[in-house]
């Protein structure tokens, strides 16, 4: 029999419902897997006691017939989500031992449906990074390794802990946040499924802000169906977030396995960037063929402003971040490094509390918003954003239901390989993902192949606003064709 923690979320749900095992047993399996996997550094805080107590409550509700939609299912939470009574750090030193007296809306909805919290997952500091190497808690190690090579690999970022934990069976599913690709890129690097829903689909209340106009929560899971189950409970209108949208949440699970016959899939020629890894290009073509085989129509499209997306993103996101992170000033909570006066206290606190990547983005953001530069940078970037949105509107108007593209320009790289290079090299990781955030669209990353070194590769599907269902249907076709990508060797268990 498969170890309980290796079941998919869907399978575990079934097992709990039929009484095959209890929520406590399931949770215990995860708790011990977590204890054995500390090498991976996926969790920054394990909440085993809380998890077991929640699981015991779940068992009672299952017994009394009051089970919620996620009853007894153990979930990991990215440390960008504020969790009541549980330390929340955003992967930064500046928050110190901050314990929120409140719960984010997304996680509150998960717990309301009976999910069990296993702990807080590592991430790049304030979600700024594409490799999980900027975390104050150190890098997360991917459960994947290159063939015949023991060098540690990054799980991607910023939701590296979430991706690694899901891939390494350290939770049945996890929450992530995606500002420029922080769900889709690590999902692709770890052979997991990750979806960033439409902007406004999930409440941002209680999620530590990086770039407010781009941030969106979404799930990580081991299968498309698992992701559909989780998103249904995470999504929904929240009067506490003015940018959340009041629109009914469909049962996404219904869309998994639905026919994609007649769906029109666009292949954007601008994503065939120079130097694109040939194995990624090959997987992309294969993915298109799978969709064609399932009855979809694949057409070439143009998204002409794509090349401006990355520079625009690296103006808008830091600009918002420079303002969002101003509150970490040592006055009310988190770290305070005293100084002779308040000015010096600010400087010392922020210099000590923020890591280099966060400081870099604050500097960039402050610069692009300053007098004399605002129009040249911020205003222009916003115009680019409008054009990118229009590019997608135009192809959707032509009847395209979804866009198929790679999730990343390369397979996962080794820890340290890029972190000392030009930061722009790391920023290029987001080249296929940032357009989706800039346009506010839903995007899903689904594993679709292996690199020559046996690392997973992911395909990305981009949909119309609020048509996540189409993405789940199409992603399932790819999952059916490509198969699943379980980590075979649990080398980290000593």
């Amino acid at each position, binding site marked *: 029999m498969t170890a309980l923690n290796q079941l998919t979320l869907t399978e575990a749900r079934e097992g709990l419902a039929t009484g095959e095992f209890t929520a406590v047993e399931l949770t215990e399996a995860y708790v011990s897997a977590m204890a054995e996997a500390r090498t991976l550094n996926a969790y920054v805080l394990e909440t085993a006691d809380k998890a077991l107590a929640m699981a015991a409550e779940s068992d009672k509700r299952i017994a009394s017939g009051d089970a919620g939609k996620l009853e007894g299912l153990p979930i990991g939470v990215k440390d960008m989500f504020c969790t009541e009574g549980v330390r929340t750090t955003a992967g930064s030193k500046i928050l110190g031992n901050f314990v929120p007296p409140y719960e984010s809306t997304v996680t509150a909805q998960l717990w309301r449906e009976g999910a069990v919290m296993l702990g807080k997952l590592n991430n790049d500091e304030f979600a700024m990074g594409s490799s999980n190497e900027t975390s104050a808690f150190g890098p997360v190690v991917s459960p994947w390794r290159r063939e015949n090579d023991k060098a540690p690999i990054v799980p991607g970022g910023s939701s590296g802990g979430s991706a690694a934990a899901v891939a390494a069976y350290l939770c049945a599913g996890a929450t992530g946040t995606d500002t420029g690709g922080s769900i889709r890129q690590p999902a692709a690097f770890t052979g997991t499924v990750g979806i960033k829903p439409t902007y406004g689909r999930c409440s*941002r209340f209680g999620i530590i802000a990086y770039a407010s106009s781009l941030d969106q929560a979404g799930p990580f899971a081991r299968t498309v169906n698992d992701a559909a189950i989780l998103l249904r409970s995470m999504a929904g209108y929240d009067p506490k977030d003015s940018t959340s949208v009041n629109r009914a949440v469909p049962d996404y699970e219904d869309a998994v396995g639905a026919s994609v016959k007649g769906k029109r899939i666009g292949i954007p020629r601008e994503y065939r960037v120079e130097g694109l890894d040939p194995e990624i290009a090959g997987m992309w073509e294969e993915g298109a063929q799978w969709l064609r085989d399932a009855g979809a129509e694949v057409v070439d499209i143009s998204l002409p402003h794509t090349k401006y997306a990355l520079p625009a993103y690296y103006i808008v996101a830091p600009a918002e971040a420079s303002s969002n992170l101003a509150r970490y000033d040592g006055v009310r909570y988190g770290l305070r490094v005293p100084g002779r006066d308040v000015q010096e206290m600010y400087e010392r606190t922020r210099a000590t509390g923020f890591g280099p990547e966060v400081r870099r983005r604050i500097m960039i953001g402050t610069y692009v918003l300053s007098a004399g530069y605002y129009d040249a940078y*911020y205003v222009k970037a916003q115009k680019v954003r409008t054009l990118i949105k229009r590019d997608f509107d135009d192809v959707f108007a032509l009847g395209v239901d979804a866009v198929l593209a790679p999730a990343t320009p390369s397979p996962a790289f080794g820890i340290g390989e890029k972190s000392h290079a030009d930061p722009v090299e790391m920023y290029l990781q987001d080249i296929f993902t940032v357009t989706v955030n800039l346009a506010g669209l839903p995007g899903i990353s689904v594993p679709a192949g292996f690199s020559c070194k046996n690392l997973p590769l992911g395909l990305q599907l981009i949909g119309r606003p609020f048509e996540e269902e189409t993405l789940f249907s199409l992603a399932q076709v790819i999952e059916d064709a490509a198969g699943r990508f379980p980590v075979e060797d649990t080398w980290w268990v000593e």
Partner: protein
Amino acid sequence: MTVHVRPTDAKKLIRGATGDWEVVIGMEIHAQVSSNAKLFSGASTAFGGPPNDHVSLVDAAMPGMLPVINRECVAQAVRTGLGLKAQINLRSTFDRKNYFYPDLPQGYQISQFKSPIVGEGEVIVDLLDGESFVVGIERLHLEQDAGKSIHDLSPSLSFVDLNRSGVALMEIVSRPDLRSSEEARAYVTKLRSILRYLGTCDGDMEKGNLRADVNVSVRRPGEPLGTRCEIKNVNSIRFIGQSIEVEARRQIEILEDGGVIDQETRLFDPGKGETRSMRSKEEAHDYRYFPDPDLLPLVLHADFVEGLKGHLPELPDEKKARFIADYGLSPYDASVLVAERDTADYFEQVAKGRDGKAAANFVINELFGRLNKDGKDVTTSPVAPAQVAAIVDLMAEGVISSKIAKDLFEIVYTEGGDPRVLVEERGLKQVTDTGAIEKVVDEIIAANPDKVAQVLAKPTMLGWFVGQAMKASGGKANPQALNDILKRKLGI
């Protein structure tokens, strides 16, 4: 709106050593919105209370907290815009004004920089001499107030009270249409009156609920605008006047000595009667304004605005016009009466169905005079409108003279009671019985033959006889009847 240029008024010029100067003033008024909850959080706006008692997680800028606009604050801003006869912008946006300060928890203030909720409007300002002029309103926008830093509790630490943090303010920006400290004071007085009528701001300057940033520059009449200095956070109408006087003087002295004015932010020190530099243009913050991504554009339906318009109270200008038309009041009296809504309501209760002028005279001269003496106003008046009305009626009916009316009012004010009953009980009725008056007059003439001789030679001496007769009648003799009888008996 047409841009009007106020002609130079010689009376308002300031005389310097080298000639006359014109002072030009524009103001930014920060008016706290009357609302139960803050602009973007559900926390209470109640004044006072222990420090940090009315602070939500949003006001304290806890991680992951988001602002949600308070509908009532928006309605109050729209009402104010309507009261200022201003353009209501159906689409407005919120921006972040970024700067670090310990009492600014977010590290930015949410304000409306680019697209304010209210555009151009105007305020008609009345001066004491009955003259009135128009002050252009450039814009009104909504923004958050900051908290309060407290520096005097510890020698080495400062404390922060966030009770005010996030309270809604309306910043009302005038055009530089004011030409003297008197005009500036009159403008703030009038604006405050309008806000209080609308119920959108209580105008309580002592609590800091209405503060002014005053922009002052001077120029030679007819020349272009001079460099201005902004005097920050002036918190009384008197200080507004004083700060303008001293700032204009300071600038004139610099210019007359051949210097130039540095554009800067200054603070008024009422104790020393001077303004001091707070920060120069070079030290000015770069606020890095940008649209707040947490808030969508604020879009109002025309119906919402119309609905608010339909329920606006009568405002001071309309009320003044009506008082002049319906009660025959002078513009001055009408202005005095409409300055406060409570006062105007009190007056109307007195004046209804009576001679408006007589009612106004009595209310302004007797009632207000007496209340002022005790530091009271109509809301705390011991005399009800019906009591004042009865006194006015007694005068109109000739039952009491205006002099007796004053005495009667004093009795009502200090002891209370129905004026009609008091007149009877205390024998205050005016004597119109000519027989009784004649008797008094006869006695005085008989007792004072020397005075009779004098008055025959000099008829203005009649006043002495009037006085004597009044005294003898306890002030109750009808003055007209007394005069007639005296003249007849003395043969003058």
